[in-house]
Structure formats: C-alpha cells, structure tokens
C-alpha cells in the first residue's frame, strides 16, 4: 500500500510555486528535524524566508491562490489561502546566523518531486537551546540523541 504524503496537492503546489519563483526559504523547526529522522512530533511545518513578503514570494503565492498576510498588532505574519494551512512563518531563529549563513549548512531533501532546503539537525538543536522555552527544553534531549544517531549512521554510509 502506498504511503500517503503528509502534504496535500495544494500544499505541494504552494511549495513548488515558491521554488519555481526562486524564493529563498527553508524548512526549520521540528518538522525539519522529523524529515532528518528525529523522533519528534509536530503539528505544522515552519518555513523561514530570507525576505518575507517580497515580490517573488507574493507572485508565487498569488499563482496558487494563496497570500502573505503581514503581521498586525495581535497576529504574527502568516500565509493564507489554498495550501497554506499547514505552514507557519518563522520570523526569527534564536541562536543562529543570518538566513544566508544557515542556508549554506542546510540539507536538501526530496519532497514530492521537488528538492527543498531544510535546516540541518545540528542547527535546529542550536536554535532550540538558544530559545530555551519550555517546549524547546522538551525537544532538546531528543534532538541531541537523534543527532548522535544520524551522525553515526552517516559514518556507516559515507557516500549518502
């Protein structure tokens, strides 16, 4: 039996439009950790954009019937419309360098016909340690152990 994708068709179209329009973004947070093998749970997929709300991003979102909603007094910035429900926007990553610096250390993961940049597991751990909120503290030991396991696995398969 085929494994169902975690993304709906609309969600994949949204990611594809962003990539087609060369919008620079990466998946971060616990969903990025999960993609790299960490046994964590999450409810959404956090996206970190280099330039939130720029023209390329807006064009890509319009193309698939979605939109960027800038922050207001009470609400953080968000995506709205077709295929946007699963995605959360991240506006700052504690303890990390600039987007461009972190992109250099990102990994590329195939997602439904696309290759998407994903923040490296070690950098996710660094950001959780820096943020140090109660929910981050819960994830830190799991991420640390997952990093040890993935590094050991990578040493067994140096060419993958």
């Amino acid at each position, binding site marked *: 039996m085929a494994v169902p994708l975690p993304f709906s068709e609309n969600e994949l179209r949204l990611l594809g439009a962003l990539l087609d329009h060369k919008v620079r973004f990466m998946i971060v947070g616990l969903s990025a950790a*999960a993609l790299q093998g960490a*046994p964590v749970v999450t409810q959404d997929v956090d996206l970190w954009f280099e330039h939130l709300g720029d023209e390329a991003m807006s064009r890509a979102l319009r193309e698939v019937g979605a939109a960027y909603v800038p922050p207001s007094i009470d609400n953080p910035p968000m995506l709205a419309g077709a295929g946007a429900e699963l995605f959360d926007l991240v506006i700052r990553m504690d303890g990390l360098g600039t987007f461009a610096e972190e992109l250099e250390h990102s990994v590329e993961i195939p997602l439904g016909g696309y290759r998407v940049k994903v923040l490296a597991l070690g950098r996710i751990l660094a950001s959780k340690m820096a943020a140090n909120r109660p929910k981050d503290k819960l994830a830190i030991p799991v991420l640390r*152990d997952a990093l040890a396991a993935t590094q050991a696995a990578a040493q067994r398969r140096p060419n993958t």
Partner: protein
Amino acid sequence: MNQRVRSETAANAQRWARRLCARVDNILAAHPSADRDNVRHTLILLEQPPLERLQRSLIRGRAFAIFRK
C-alpha cells in the same frame, strides 16, 4: 503465507532487530548519556524516506493536540 516463508520472514526480522540493537549499543557507547529509545527510534526512522518520517511526526503531533483539547 506458507510456513517456510513465515519462518524466513521471522528470521529476517530477528536479524534486523539484532543489527539494530548492536548499532544502538555502539552509539550509546560513544554517547553514554543518550536515551536508548531516542537512538533506536531515530535509526528506525532513518530507514524510512523523509516524507514518511514527516508523515509520522505530523500524525502523532495532531493526535496529541486533539488529546489535549
């Protein structure tokens, strides 16, 4: 599934489990403070494609959110 195929499948499963335990032991030897379950689950997830890993993570995350309500 006939008896012979069942035996082979069970033997393969046992071999896989022994290999997995050995790998977990090796990692724990290098990282004594690591949690055995975290390491074991990570190694199991690394045998799955990335999208399936995310799928499992989202299903469990959403189930947990419903349970909390």
